[in-house]
C-alpha cells in the first residue's frame, strides 16, 4: 500500500492553509491536504465536522476565507466550478427533474457547446460504463434511487474530469443497494484511475473504498492514513473511538513500574504492556487510556501464554458470522468478538488474554497515542 502511494506521488489536488468561517463560526481551520493523482481519498467524520464544507470548497461552490486550492498544478482558488476539472455527485442525486436521463447527462456538455456527435459519443460511453442505456429516455421521477445515483455519477463521467467529488452519495439508499453501489464505485475507480474525493460519515464505506482516509473533527483533520493504519494505529483517542463497530474498549488507568517493566494499572487490575510498540516513552505515573478492539481480546481456548484475566459474560449478541460478548471486567463493560459458532451462557466465567501488539495507549490528558 505504501509503495503503491509513493510510486504515484504526483499531486492531483492540493489544499493549502485553507480556512473558512461563516461570521463568527469557524468551519475549517488552516487545513492542509495533498491528494495524489488517482487516489481515492475519503473524508470521514460525523455531521458538522466540516467534511462537506471542504468538498464544497474544492468544488468551488463555497469561497474559502483564507488559503488556496490547487488542482493539477493550477491554482483554482478563485475559479468557477466548471473551470476546475471536477465532477460532483450529490447525496440527493440532484437530477434535473424536467429532463430525461440523456438530457441530464448531456446538460453540462450542451452548456459548454460541445459538438453534437461528441456529446452522443460521451453519453453512450458513460451509459455503457454505468449500465443505464435502457434508462436514457426516462425522467428521473421514473427511476429508483440506485438508478438515479448511477445517472448522477454518469453526469460527472461524461464531463471527462480529473477529479470526482462525492458528497455522501450512498446515504439516501437502503442498505442492500448501498453495498452494491459501493462495489460499483470501487470498480469504477479501478477502471478509470481518476482522483476521487469521497465524503461520508459511514466508516464501512470509508474503510472499504479508501486508499487513504482523512478523519475530521471540528474542521481539523485528525488523522490522514490508509485504512489499516487508521484502524490499527489510531493517532488519538477520537480516531480510535470513531472507527470500529462496536467501538474500541477503553480502560482508564495509569502507567506504573512493576518487576522492572512498565505495566498498566487501574484500581481493579494490572497487566503487562509487553509487546506494545510505543512511539513515545512510557513514563510510569502517567495517566493513560488503554484501547483494545473487540477482536484483539482473546477468549478461553485462544488464550495462549501471557497473562490471563477473568471476566463474566453479561450479554451475548450472536450476529451470524461473529458472536459479540459484552463482558464485565475490572468494573467496566468490554465487548469481545469471537467466532459465531462459539456460544456462551450469560453469567458464565471466561478467561481473557490481551494482545498488546494490537493495543493502543493514549495519554490521559492530550489523548494522543503513546
Amino acid at each position: 500500500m505504501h509503495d503503491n502511494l509513493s510510486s504515484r506521488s504526483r499531486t492531483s489536488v492540493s489544499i493549502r492553509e485553507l480556512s473558512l468561517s461563516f461570521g463568527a463560526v469557524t468551519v475549517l481551520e488552516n487545513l492542509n491536504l495533498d491528494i495524489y493523482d488517482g487516489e481515492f481519498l475519503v473524508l470521514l467524520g460525523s455531521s458538522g465536522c466540516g467534511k462537506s464544507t471542504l468538498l464544497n470548497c474544492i468544488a468551488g461552490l463555497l469561497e474559502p476565507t483564507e488559503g488556496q486550492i490547487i488542482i493539477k498544478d493550477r491554482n483554482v482558488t478563485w475559479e468557477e466550478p466548471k473551470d476546475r476539472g471536477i465532477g460532483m455527485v450529490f447525496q440527493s442525486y440532484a437530477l434535473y427533474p424536467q429532463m430525461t436521463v440523456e438530457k441530464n447527462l448531456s446538460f453540462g456538455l450542451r452548456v459548454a457547446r460541445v459538438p453534437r456527435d461528441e456529446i452522443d459519443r460521451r453519453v453512450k460511453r458513460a451509459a455503457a460504463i454505468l449500465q443505464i442505456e435502457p434508462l436514457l429516455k426516462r425522467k428521473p421521477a421514473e427511476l429508483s434511487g440506485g438508478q438515479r445515483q448511477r445517472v448522477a455519477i454518469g453526469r460527472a463521467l461524461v464531463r471527462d474530469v480529473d477529479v470526482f467529488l462525492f458528497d455522501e452519495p450512498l446515504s439516501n439508499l437502503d442498505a442492500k443497494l448501498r453495498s452494491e453501489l459501493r462495489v460499483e464505485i470501487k470498480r469504477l475507480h479501478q477502471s478509470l484511475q481518476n482522483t476521487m474525493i469521497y465524503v461520508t460519515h459511514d466508516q464501512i464505506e470509508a474503510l472499504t473504498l479508501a486508499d487513504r482516509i482523512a478523519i475530521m473533527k471540528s474542521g481539523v483533520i485528525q488523522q490522514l492514513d490508509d485504512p489499516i493504519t487508521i484502524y490499527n494505529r489510531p493517532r488519538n483517542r477520537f480516531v480510535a473511538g470513531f472507527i470500529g463497530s462496536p467501538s474500541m474498549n477503553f480502560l482508564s488507568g495509569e502507567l506504573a513500574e512493576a518487576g522492572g517493566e512498565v505495566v498498566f494499572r487501574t484500581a481493579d487490575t494490572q497487566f503487562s504492556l509487553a509487546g506494545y510498540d510505543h512511539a513515545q516513552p512510557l513514563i510510569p505515573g502517567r495517566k493513560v487510556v488503554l484501547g483494545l478492539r473487540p477482536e484483539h481480546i482473546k477468549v478461553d481456548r485462544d488464550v495462549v501464554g501471557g497473562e490471563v484475566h477473568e471476566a463474566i459474560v453479561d450479554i451475548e449478541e450472536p450476529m451470524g458470522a461473529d458472536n459479540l460478548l459484552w463482558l464485565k471486567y475490572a468494573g467496566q463493560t468490554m465487548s469481545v468478538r469471537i467466532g459465531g459458532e462459539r456460544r456462551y451462557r450469560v453469567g458464565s466465567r471466561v478467561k481473557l488474554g490481551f494482545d498488546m501488539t494490537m493495543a493502543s495507549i493514549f495519554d490521559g490528558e492530550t489523548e494522543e497515542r503513546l
Partner: protein
Amino acid sequence: MDKSTIATVHPDMPARRYPGPQGKRPRKALSGRNIMLYGALGLAALYYLLPLYVMVVTSLKGMPEIRVGNIFSPPLEITFEPWVKAWAQACTGLNCDGLSRGFWNSVKIMVPSVIVSIAIASVNGYALANWRFKGADLFFTILIVGAFIPYQVMIYPIVIVLRELGLYGTLTGLIVVHSIFGMPILTLLFRNYFVSLPEELFKAARIDGAGFWQIYFRIMLPMALPIFVVAMILQVTGIWNDFLFGVVFTRPENYPMTVQLNNIVNSVQGVKEYNVNMAATLLTGAVPLFVYFVSGRLFVRGIAAGAVKG
C-alpha cells in the same frame, strides 16, 4: 363444535372470522353530525350567493319589471338587452360605447403589468434564493417592508415621479406602478419557492457550467410552473380589480374597467338603470372569476418530484 376450537381454521372449512364487524364500515347519511355540518355549510353558501343571485336575475329583467320592486323573483321575461347595453352603449362622460372601452383598457394595462412584474419578481426571487450576494438579506427586508406601507401614502410621491418622467396619465405609467407595487409580495413568493427547491440542484447546475441566466431559464423556470400560476392569479385579480391607481394615474380615455364601472353605476343623471348596472358589474368581475376557474387546477403540481429522494 368444541368451544375450544372456535378460533382455529379447519382445512376443509372456509376461514372462520371472529364475530363482530365485517365488510365496509356502515355510515349513516343523515346522522345528526352531518345534518349540522351540511346545514351550516349550506346556509353560509346561500348567504354569500344571494347577492349574486339578485344581480343575475336583475340583469336579466327589463326596467318595468324592476320597478315592481320584487328583487328576489326570477325574471318573467328574460332579456339580454341590459348586458348588450352595459357592454356597448352605456355612457360615461362623453363616450357612449359602454364598458368595452374599459375592458380593453384593462387588458392593455393588465397584460404588460402581469408579464413585467412576474418576470422581474421571479428573477429577484431566484437571485435572492440562490445567489446570496452581499446585502441580500437587507435588500429583502427593505423590499418586504414595502409590502406593509399603505398605498395611499405613496400615491403623491409617485404622481410627482411619473410627472418628472413624463409618464403621468399614460398607460405605461400605470404599468410601471402596478409592476412596482406587485414586487414585494411576488418576490417573497418566488424567493420562498426557489428556497424550497433542493439546493443541490443549483450546485449541480453550477458544476455543469451553467451561469446565472442558464440556470434560471433551463433549470429553475421549468420547475417553477406552479408558482408562476399562483403569481399570475394574484396579479391578474389584483390589477384587474384595482381602482385607486387606475383613477389616479390615468386619464379618462385610458380608464380601466373598474373606474368606468364606477362611473356608469354612480352617474347621477337620468334614471338609474339597475339591470344595466348589474350586468356591467358582472361583466367586470368575470375576468378574475374566469382566471380562478381555469387555472385553479394547475395550482399545485409535484414538478420537483424526482429531483430528490421520493
